[in-house]
């Protein structure tokens, strides 16, 4: 509780107790005063007691209302409350009636406000904690002692020490130690990541098992944790349409309600008096008008909508989905077309041996020979063969390495003549080779002038890609499209494998923007958005051109983070589907809250105007709706199992 909240709570309790105490004040005591002093003395004393209580609970409201009028802002909720309660007081004085109502209404209102402030404060704290990856300090060794230092003061290249249980404060490279890191705050990934000397670590991870010495590679402000925090904290300043709607709505709503209340107070009595010839019943109608005013306060609506978005953004960030603004969360829920980049997004973007065909020898043998022959080359293809071999390469077994540019390599391994390369090399050496019907890069292997088979190397589709496309369809995305610079043969294979709706191949980076624009033009309605998912390399222009740009696995690539509207901290395409599900859930809750708050309000307003509900019920309804709406908004945060 803040100091303000404590003070308010005390005021609520004191005035509540006083009000209860006054109920036990016998009427005789006041009429006794009448006899003793002067007529009306008892009535004045009674009023004075109630009035003090009224001031205890409501003085700040009256003050704010007065200030509002002075500052030219007449129709706010303080004004409504002041008018309603002063009006009720006036009616009570006039009729020598019940002062309890005015005080009780003020009391309920203040209790409601207090609950709201408490609930919102609590929710806000919960969500903020969820996103709390800000490291408070860094350990540095100075003169043989480990001291805690403000991470902002650490210079690039300093060696910092991270003990088990501590957050990595700054991005860097491990220079000493071994440990597993919990990255869940950054990526939502629950499996710990093993790390040891030479590995890069990003800030925000929690060190779990061993002491690590890390040489920093970035300043604190440029580190991943700071970047993520900046991104998420600025998120709610980009307002969604729903939020703007609420602001505009409140601006029209309050004056409209005040006008209606005035009409309610004046028109029926005049009609009664002049047309129907009945008694005017001013008191009744003014009271109804005041009730109408009390009910009208739009707090539930105004508070729950931004809270829903904030909770949704907070929950998503916990899952490794960083959304730059509520407007993007809203747009995401309307995604009709999802466009993917191929390499690095749907596929892993690294080359792997995916098959060995037509070989006479054992698979392992062919790889072993090829890996040895290629041992001197640093070409990505040779690397992938060496990786597939996986064992140590014994250089003493290799001799006479000869690289034939654009064709391949000829070398002696274990005394046998090994030729590794493309079809040109095979032709050149007079070896008959067999072509492959698979897509990818084909490496033929010849041993002692005989064909020994070929190794197929291709970019591998990510294991979750297919599932992700299916999940997107299920989440309501109508069309999935792939753009790639790769050959049409490769594109067809990938598109068929993943069951994509459309694909465009052999595109230059500029063509990708053009294609995206074409696709954008095809989206006829406002409510179907186009999202582009890329890995942030070379596709920054497309990321910013699409309605929603999603960069994946982009931690560390500043350009992509700048250009994208949504950043996925790892490169799992399933996260894209999850982001859409989160946005849909969030928007559902927002709509529920709008409908619920407005619906209950409308019912109460009608009941109040008809004189069926009193002020008590009105306030109860108001606080109740607000609390339910806030609780409902908090559901946006629960996205783990979505």
């Amino acid at each position: 509780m803040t100091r303000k909240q404590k003070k308010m709570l005390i005021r609520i309790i004191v005035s509540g107790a006083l009000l209860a105490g006054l109920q036990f004040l016998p009427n005789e005591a006041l009429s006794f005063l009448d006899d003793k002093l002067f007529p009306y003395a008892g009535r004045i004393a009674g009023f004075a007691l109630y009035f003090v209580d009224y001031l205890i609970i409501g003085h700040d409201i009256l003050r704010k209302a007065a200030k509002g009028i002075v500052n030219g802002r007449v129709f706010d909720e303080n004004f409504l409350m002041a008018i309603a309660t002063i009006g009720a007081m006036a009616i009570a004085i006039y009729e020598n009636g019940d002062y309890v109502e005015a005080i009780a209404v003020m009391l309920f209102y203040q209790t409601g406000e207090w609950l709201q402030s408490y609930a919102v404060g609590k929710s806000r704290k919960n969500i903020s904690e969820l996103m709390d990856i800000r490291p408070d300090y860094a350990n540095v060794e100075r003169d043989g002692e480990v001291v805690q230092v403000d991470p902002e003061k650490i210079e690039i290249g300093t060696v910092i020490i991270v003990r088990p249980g501590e957050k990595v404060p700054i991005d860097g490279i491990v220079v000493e130690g071994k440990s597993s890191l919990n990255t869940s705050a950054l990526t939502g990934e629950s499996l710990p990541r093993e790390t040891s000397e030479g590995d890069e670590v990003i800030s925000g991870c929690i060190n779990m098992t061993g002491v690590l010495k890390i040489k920093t590679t970035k300043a604190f402000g440029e580190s991943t944790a700071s970047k993520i925090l900046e991104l998420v904290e600025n998120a709610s300043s980009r307002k969604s349409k729903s939020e703007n709607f609420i602001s505009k709505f409140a601006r029209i709503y309050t004056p409209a309600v005040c006008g209606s209340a005035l009409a309610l107070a004046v028109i029926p009595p005049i009609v009664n008096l002049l047309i129907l010839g009945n008694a005017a019943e001013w008191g009744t109608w003014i009271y109804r008008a005041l009730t109408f005013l009390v009910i009208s306060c739009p707090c539930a609506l105004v508070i729950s909508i931004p809270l829903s978005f904030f909770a949704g953004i907070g929950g998503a960030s916990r899952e490794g989905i960083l959304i730059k603004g509520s407007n993007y969360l809203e747009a995401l829920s309307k995604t009709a077309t999802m466009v993917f980049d191929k390499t690095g997004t749907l596929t892993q973007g690294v080359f792997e041996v995916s098959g060995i065909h037509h070989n006479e020898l054992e698979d392992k043998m062919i790889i072993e020979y090829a890996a040895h022959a290629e041992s001197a080359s640093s070409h990505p293809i040779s690397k992938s063969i060496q990786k597939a071999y996986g064992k140590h390469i014994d250089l003493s077994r290799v001799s006479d390495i000869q690289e034939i540019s654009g064709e391949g390599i000829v070398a002696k391994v274990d005394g046998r003549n090994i030729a590794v390369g493309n079809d040109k090399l095979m032709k050149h050496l007079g070896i008959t080779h067999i072509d492959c019907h698979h897509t990818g890069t084909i490496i033929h292997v010849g041993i002692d002038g005989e064909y020994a088979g070929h190794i197929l190397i291709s970019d591998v589709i990510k294991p979750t890609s297919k599932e992700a496309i299916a999940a997107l369809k299920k989440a309501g995305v109508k069309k999935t499209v792939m753009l790639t610079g790769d050959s049409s043969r490769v594109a067809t294979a990938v598109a068929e494998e993943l069951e994509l709706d459309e694909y465009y191949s052999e595109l230059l980076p500029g063509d990708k923007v053009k294609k995206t624009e074409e696709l954008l033009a095809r989206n006829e309605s406002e409510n179907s958005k186009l999202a582009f998912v890329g890995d942030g390399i070379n596709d920054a222009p497309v990321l910013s051109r699409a309605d929603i740009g999603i960069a994946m696995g982009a931690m560390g690539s500043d350009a992509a983070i700048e250009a994208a509207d949504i950043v996925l901290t790892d490169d799992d395409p399933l996260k894209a589907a999850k982001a859409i599900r989160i946005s849909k859930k969030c928007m559902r809750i927002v709509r529920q809250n709008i409908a619920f708050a407005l619906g209950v309000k409308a019912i109460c307003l009608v009941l109040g105007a008809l004189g069926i509900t009193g002020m008590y019920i009105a306030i109860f309804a108001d606080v109740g709706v607000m609390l339910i709406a806030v609780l409902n908004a908090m559901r946006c945060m629960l996205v783990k199992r979505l």
Partner: protein
Amino acid sequence: MKKVYKVEVDCANCANLMEIASNKVEGIANANINFMTQKMGVEFEEGADEKKVMKAVLKACRKVEPDCEIEI
């Protein structure tokens, strides 16, 4: 020049009103209040005296929400 200030404001609508009021203050290029994080991001116009401007901002905010607080 950009700066971030801590604010204390109780309702989302009040924060909106404060934001609107702040943006009208002379010397402010852009101000936004984030109700959820209770922070105010301020971009000053070039050559503006930030202390003076922030005092004016506080005054303008107090007009729309007497209870608010800005840590200058």
